[in-house]
């Protein structure tokens, strides 16, 4: 059954809300009243349609906070740690496609943003991070709370600014949002010295920006190459689609659906691509890579034509990259020219916005008479489908669902059943992240929000807060591990006080489960600081999340018996408040299947 086809007929990236500037179509410069720099900055954010900022104040950013208190358009949310703030901004961005905005003060505030900026860079998330800086004349003198955040973030930003003149603020903010959200999205940093925040000036808001080094960011596909691609599909017997986050970034899920309905090619996504194609569709093979399905890995590696779209041949996907899809002809469509031939040399590179490429491909296919096939009636590659069906039957995603212990996979499966795949799921990093990706059926883009490239523990709960703020009508659930959850547990205070009803399911096995799994597989089960409980009381449960949550004024229920889980989960879903479900699971479970690092799909471990 294919749920909610309409989800694939509309662009999930909603346009930015109407800003005040669009009400005044006046040509020529748009001047504001005399304000201080901080007020100009906030006015610029309002003009970009920003409705939420996650900001933690400090000496060097106080003027901006003062200006924010006067804004009627921007909700300022106080996280309890800058890292929580930047992850929340990412959650907001990943759920909407619009730039998430966060702010911190200079020095330690700025350094606490780094993990989130790096995360946004790795996963191509539009993010604008603002930092306060010491006054201009103190820069470089080792002033109190001074760090060179511009220099520190150079390798992890798409672009960055140190504002050196109050008159530059409107241009810098406009450019920052344009760069963060266009082309291949990414994080942009704006560092603002305190004296510039305090200086007075009359802003001139530009209507255009001029970036001569950046005009080439959204290339059109080459028509000849697209025709060659269709020729390859036509001659193919075992074609596969390998699609990733680029489909979601460019809002191309409806175009991908049409392309699949016309060509009838099976689809495997990357972890970042989950949700860009409904996982309950008969042509979906779920996702590939180290812990992806056997059938997705087999099909991609044994395909004769591999259509790689909006992907980057990450090592967690390819394993040994020279052996990856070695017998297939690879077509690589990506908006970022530097991704072509970076990790894998391909036969047919197409540098293009993947949405534009799919729109043209669909038009060309329609012209050539490739009709849209209704879901489930595909028949173009019968032998290939049969082979895939065989793999699906022989190697389904499975686990030992026995005894009264709560298998973590069962918990995810149950959540899938109770939410009908309609929730937005966020995760931390580790085993629970893989199970959340494996045992939940994602049907729409932007429904799995996970730190994929960087693999930053502690991401799940703040990201859930950000997603919930952006999508208050959706159920947002952080499927977390006990290790990851503890890393940003302080954000319970933010969620509680701000009334952000993000839910958490802790799959609590008292261990760093993924590292334990590697210890079991590769280090003879010698435990190298992977036990998170209290060694003096190894049978007890530590820390006590019920008590911790009580301290935050948050409801938390612990579940230790399988028969109690359904009821507890229903109570969690019925709640309208922030809610934690502490689910005790055995630490002996391994995430399977597994392709060991540097291996090939033939090395896959299934038990």
């Amino acid at each position: 059954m294919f749920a909610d086809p309409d989800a694939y007929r509309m662009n999930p990236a909603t346009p930015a809300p109407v800003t005040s500037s669009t009400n005044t179509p006046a040509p020529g410069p748009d001047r504001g009243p005399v304000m201080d720099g901080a007020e100009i900055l906030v006015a610029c954010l309002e003009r970009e349609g920003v409705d939420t900022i996650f900001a933690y104040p400090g000496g060097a950013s106080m003027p901006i906070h003062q200006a924010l208190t006067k804004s009627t358009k921007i909700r300022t949310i106080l996280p309890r740690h800058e890292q929580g703030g930047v992850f929340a901004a990412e959650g907001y961005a990943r759920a909407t496609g619009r730039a998430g905005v966060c702010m911190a003060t200079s020095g330690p505030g700025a350094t606490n943003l780094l993990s989130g900026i790096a995360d946004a860079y790795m996963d191509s998330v539009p993010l604008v991070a603002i930092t306060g800086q010491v006054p201009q004349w103190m820069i470089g003198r080792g002033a109190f709370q001074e760090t060179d955040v511009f220099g520190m973030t150079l390798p992890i930003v798409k672009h960055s600014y140190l504002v050196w003149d109050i008159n530059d603020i409107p241009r810098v903010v406009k450019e920052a949002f344009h760069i963060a959200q266009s082309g291949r999205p990414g994080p942009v940093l704006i560092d603002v010295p305190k004296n510039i925040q305090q200086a007075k000036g009359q802003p001139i808001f530009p209507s255009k920006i001029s970036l001569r080094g950046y005009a080439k960011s959204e290339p059109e596909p080459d028509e000849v190459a697209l025709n060659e691609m269709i020729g390859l599909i036509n001659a193919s017997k075992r074609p596969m689609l390998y699609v990733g986050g680029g489909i979601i970034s460019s809002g191309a899920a409806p175009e991908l659906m049409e392309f699949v309905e016309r060509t009838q090619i099976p689809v495997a996504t990357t972890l970042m691509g989950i949700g860009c194609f409904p996982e309950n569709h008969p042509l979906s093979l779920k996702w590939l890579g180290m812990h992806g399905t056997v059938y997705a890995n087999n099909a991609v590696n044994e395909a004769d034509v591999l259509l790689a779209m909006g992907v980057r041949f990450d090592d967690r996907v390819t394993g040994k990259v020279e052996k990856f899809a070695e017998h297939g002809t690879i077509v690589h469509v990506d908006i970022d020219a530097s991704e072509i031939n970076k990790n894998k040399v391909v036969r047919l590179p197409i540098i293009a916005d993947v949405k534009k490429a799919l729109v043209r491909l669909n038009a060309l296919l329609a012209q050539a008479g490739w009709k849209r096939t209704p879901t489930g009636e595909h028949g173009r590659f019968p032998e290939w489908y049969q082979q895939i069906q065989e793999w699906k039957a022989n190697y389904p995603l499975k686990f030992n669902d026995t005894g009264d212990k709560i298998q973590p996979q069962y918990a995810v499966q149950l959540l899938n059943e109770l939410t009908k795949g309609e929730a937005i799921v966020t995760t931390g990093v580790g085993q629970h992240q893989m199970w959340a990706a494996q045992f939940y059926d994602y049907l729409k883009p932007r429904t799995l929000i996970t730190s994929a490239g960087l693999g930053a523990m502690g991401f799940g709960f703040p990201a859930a807060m950000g997603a919930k703020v952006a999508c208050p009508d959706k159920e947002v659930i952080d499927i977390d591990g006990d290790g990851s959850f503890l890393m940003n547990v302080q954000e319970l205070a933010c969620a509680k006080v701000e009334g952000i009803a993000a839910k958490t399911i802790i799959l609590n096995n008292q261990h760093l489960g993924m590292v334990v799994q590697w210890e079991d597989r590769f280090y003879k089960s010698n435990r190298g600081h992977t036990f998170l409980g209290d060694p003096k009381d190894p049978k007890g449960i530590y820390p006590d999340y019920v008590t911790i949550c009580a301290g935050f004024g948050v409801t938390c229920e612990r579940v230790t018996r399988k028969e109690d889980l359904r009821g507890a989960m229903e109570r969690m879903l019925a709640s309208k408040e922030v809610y934690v479900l502490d689910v005790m699971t055995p630490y002996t479970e391994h995430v399977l299947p597994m392709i060991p690092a540097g291996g090939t799909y033939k090395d896959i471990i299934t038990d």
Partner: protein
Amino acid sequence: MRHTLSVLVENKFGVLARIAGMFSGRGFNIDTLNSGPTLDPNTSHITIVVQGDDAVLEQVTKQLNKLVDVIRIEDFRDNEFVDRELVLMRVKVNGETRSEVMQICDIFRAKIVDVQHTNFLIEVTGHEGKINKFIRLMHGFGISNLTRTGKVAMSRRKDENEGGSGKAEVES
């Protein structure tokens, strides 16, 4: 293999750090790097000599292009270009060697810019081959100090982007 790239960049805060950081962060090797202003005070020209095969050069070029402050990259693989380097060196001399060093300088059109009893300060410009030959010859007399600018380069042909601003405006 060594390649020469000419990179036109916005003359903005941190642009050199961005470029140098991209090289170190992605494991590319810079042989020489030279940066200076152009006719337009808003832009700088950076000439980079980089080590690596064609695949490395392809990545270097693409990664440079991704930097917002990089306006244009010229890769001198496929067309004729002129490259020059300037070197200053202090060469030891005595009564016996002084005239020989002066003769060699003459042949290489090198300039003796300062004269001391025991050494000459010599300035030489030219392409890499000439410079290296000159340095080898001077080694025989003893070089006590040496500093090089790194290459600057320019295509022999006028390219179509030259002169124009190349500016593209984006409405948003």
